[in-house]
């Protein structure tokens, strides 16, 4: 068991339990859609419409340190490169590559398989991970190679095997069915980051997964640690607190403390990349909810939600769809959107009446469950009135938007939504303030420049005037002298004339 814990959080039983966790292979999709937008910017396609691509072939990449290439997850022909609806809160369209399957699933042949990873340098391994398109598969999608190369003096590697959300079972399934690969993946990650030890964290209600992993773990640097099944145990900083009793400071990251966290599915993907030389082209997705028969499916990336939901024998009622999880997931209107690397789960629920939102009575249930120790009842007040500065002084920035407060709120206020809105507003205001500041600086400099020019010109004019005056005075004096001389000459002449007479 974990030695420590953190405050707050809530115990939420899986609302859609299954008798046995499985992984069902979803059939090859007829068509896949690969969004080009990534953390590191928009990827550039390196294929054109009409090209034939193999499974595992790179179809797009970016330049830069965050680059994670995008691989074709089926073999077939590039159908189009255009804007499609993707899984995003906004529902906006984004540039995507669409590939039509030829149904043969022909893989790009890899030559150098079967080499012991210990023979590779760390750089080489990081490069393999990068080239294979591995990112954090727990939901955040941070490029794994960046995380692995960023850390200095890593002492502990934490493998996060806690499901991020109640009802999601994809990591549980992975641990039960691929324990050997996961342990091997942990060893690779240990080799890369040079940590002394690795801890695999599993929730204590996942006994089969725990036993499966324990059976294959013969490495004394790897320990398997059970943590209480409590929602938000999966949040990186809170998991580190529960395992190591280390509190990562606000605004800092785990890597700053010499700790690296990797998700279980990411670890498996690292194994596939390094040992099998297989790029990331599929993932395990939980399809659950009261509108379907809950299960896990291994599906090719880019397949549509619809493709996968049809596998889970949905009922005929009207459904609400949600991606990610019941707590932090996002509602999606359409199911014609592609499954991405961070799609952990799809919730299909029968449409139900939403509870009425009542007034906040400051009962304080929310601050009891807040794992970060915030006062959501106060934050709500400020977020609602858009008093962002006040909200920031109540530590708005530390909110992890886990929605525990939403879950317990007797007035059914969507608190986490308010907070994410306030954060966005703050970002926008800061940006606007920056812009205003720049504009003001520019304006002030222009004023200063104009003033300076004016002064300079006046000075110049004055100087010119002065020199002109001097010149004129000189000339005047000269003339004076000449006339005086001429007069003298005249006088002399007159005198001479007189004497001559």
């Amino acid at each position, binding site marked *: 068991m974990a030695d420590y814990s953190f405050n707050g959080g809530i115990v939420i039983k899986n609302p859609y339990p299954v008798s046995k966790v499985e992984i069902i292979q979803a059939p090859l999709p007829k068509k896949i859609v690969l969004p080009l937008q990534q953390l590191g910017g928009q990827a550039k396609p390196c294929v054109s419409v009409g090209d034939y691509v193999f499974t595992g072939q790179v179809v797009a990449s970016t330049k830069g340190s965050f680059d994670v290439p995008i691989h074709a997850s089926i073999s077939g022909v590039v159908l189009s490169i255009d804007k499609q609806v993707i899984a995003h809160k906004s529902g906006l369209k984004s540039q995507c590559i669409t590939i039509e399957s030829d149904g043969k699933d022909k893989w790009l042949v890899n030559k150098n398989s079967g080499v012991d990873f210990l023979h590779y340098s760390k750089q080489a391994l990081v490069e393999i991970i990068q080239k294979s398109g591995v990112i954090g598969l727990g939901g955040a999608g941070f490029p794994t190679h960046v995380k692995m190369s960023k850390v200095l003096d890593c002492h502990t590697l934490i493998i996060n095997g806690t499901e991020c959300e109640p009802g999601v079972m994809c990591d549980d399934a992975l641990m039960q069915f691929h324990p050997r690969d996961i342990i091997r993946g942990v060893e690779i990650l240990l080799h890369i980051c040079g940590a002394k030890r690795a801890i695999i964290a599993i929730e204590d209600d996942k006994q089969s997964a725990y036993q499966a992993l324990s059976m294959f773990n013969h490495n004394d640097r790897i320990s398997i640690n059970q943590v209480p099944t409590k929602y938000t145990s999966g949040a990186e900083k809170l998991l580190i607190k529960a395992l190591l009793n280390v509190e990562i400071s*606000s605004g800092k990251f785990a890597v700053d403390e010499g700790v690296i966290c990797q998700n279980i599915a990411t670890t498996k993907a690292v194994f596939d990349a390094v040992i099998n030389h297989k790029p990331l082209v599929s993932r395990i997705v939980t399809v659950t909810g009261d509108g379907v028969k809950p299960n896990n499916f291994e599906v090719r990336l880019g397949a549509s939600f619809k493709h996968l939901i049809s596998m889970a024998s949905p009922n005929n009622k009207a459904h609400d769809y949600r991606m990610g999880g019941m707590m932090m997931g996002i509602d999606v209107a359409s199911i014609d959107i592609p499954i991405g690397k961070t799609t952990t789960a799809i919730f299909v629920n029968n449409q139900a009446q939403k509870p009425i939102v*009542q007034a906040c009575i400051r009962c304080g*249930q929310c601050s009891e469950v807040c794992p970060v*120790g915030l*006062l959501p009842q106060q934050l709500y007040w400020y977020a609602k009135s858009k008093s962002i500065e006040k909200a920031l002084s109540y530590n708005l920035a530390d909110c992890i938007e886990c929605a525990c407060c939403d879950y317990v709120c007797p007035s059914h206020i969507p608190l986490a939504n308010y907070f994410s809105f306030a954060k966005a507003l703050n970002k926008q205001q800061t940006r606007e303030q920056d812009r205003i500041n720049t504009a003001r600086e520019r304006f002030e400099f222009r004023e200063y420049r104009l003033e300076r020019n004016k002064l300079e010109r006046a000075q110049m004019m004055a100087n010119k005037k002065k020199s002109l005056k001097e010149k004129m005075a000189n000339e005047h004096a000269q003339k004076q002298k000449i006339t005086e001389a001429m007069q003298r000459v005249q006088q002399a002449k007159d005198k001479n004339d007189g004497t001559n007479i």
Partner: protein
Amino acid sequence: MMAPIFSSTSWMMRQVIYALALGVMAAYYFFGWGVFLQITLGVVAAIVVESAFLALRGRDVISSISDGSAVLSAILLAISIPSIAPWWVIIVGVSFAIIFGKQLYGGLGNNPFNPAMLGYVFLLISYPLQMSTWQVDFLSLSQALDVIFDLSNIDVISGATKLDEVKNGLPLSGSIQQLDPHSISQAWINAGFLLGGLYLLLRKVIFWHIPASFLAGVVISSMLLWVSNTDLYLPTQNHLMLGGTMLGAFFIATDPVSASTTPKGRIIYGFLIGVLIVIIRAFGGYPDGIAFAVLLINMTVPLIDRLTQPKVFGQ
């Protein structure tokens, strides 16, 4: 231990109303039907006034009324005033509580003061005679109707409360002991509210902080006074079992809207109210001080909340 998850705010309000039942039954046992008549008048007035105001403000009447907060405020005020008070007293009080105590601030959740206590203080200052005449005997329904609606000239044996008697009798007798500061009826009523309060704690509708620190404030300050002069000051057990101590500790000070909302803040808040009640009872002009103490400390809540923010993870 994990916090329970409540289905709705209305559910919480209903739990508080149920928890009042024991104390109300005790009051009925000693004072009769007047108690229920006051509650009925208060609840009807609350619903009418709140609906009218919500309609005026252009809000959804049904969903706001159904949160139960107006009904709860009305019941709290109705059981705080004498059960033989004329019918208009409770109506005026409830109307003031709802309009000036709640709706003018923006409705439920926005009021800085406890509405029921605001109504109580308003009545106490405006109608001191009606607010300090308590009856002694059990009244039947028809008797209660007669008295409250002033239908016929019947004589009801009335008097002051025990705290009143003590306050007024002390300068004459010079010693608390001679006054016999015990009251069976008030002890039972307080016991009823104590049990109801424990039920709320058990259901976790209220947190322990406010009642515990409230009672600690009463016990500590009354003990210190009593030790300093046993003739002048009431013993601690009388402070606990007279007046509205238990009602205040479990039902009035715990109103979450006007109370402090941080764990540490709740302890400070409750304690200050407890101390202030004893000070008002011992040195103030009024026999009981729950309403004044609650309203005064309500004012300090924004400051308390600001100064008692809990530690945030990673800071």
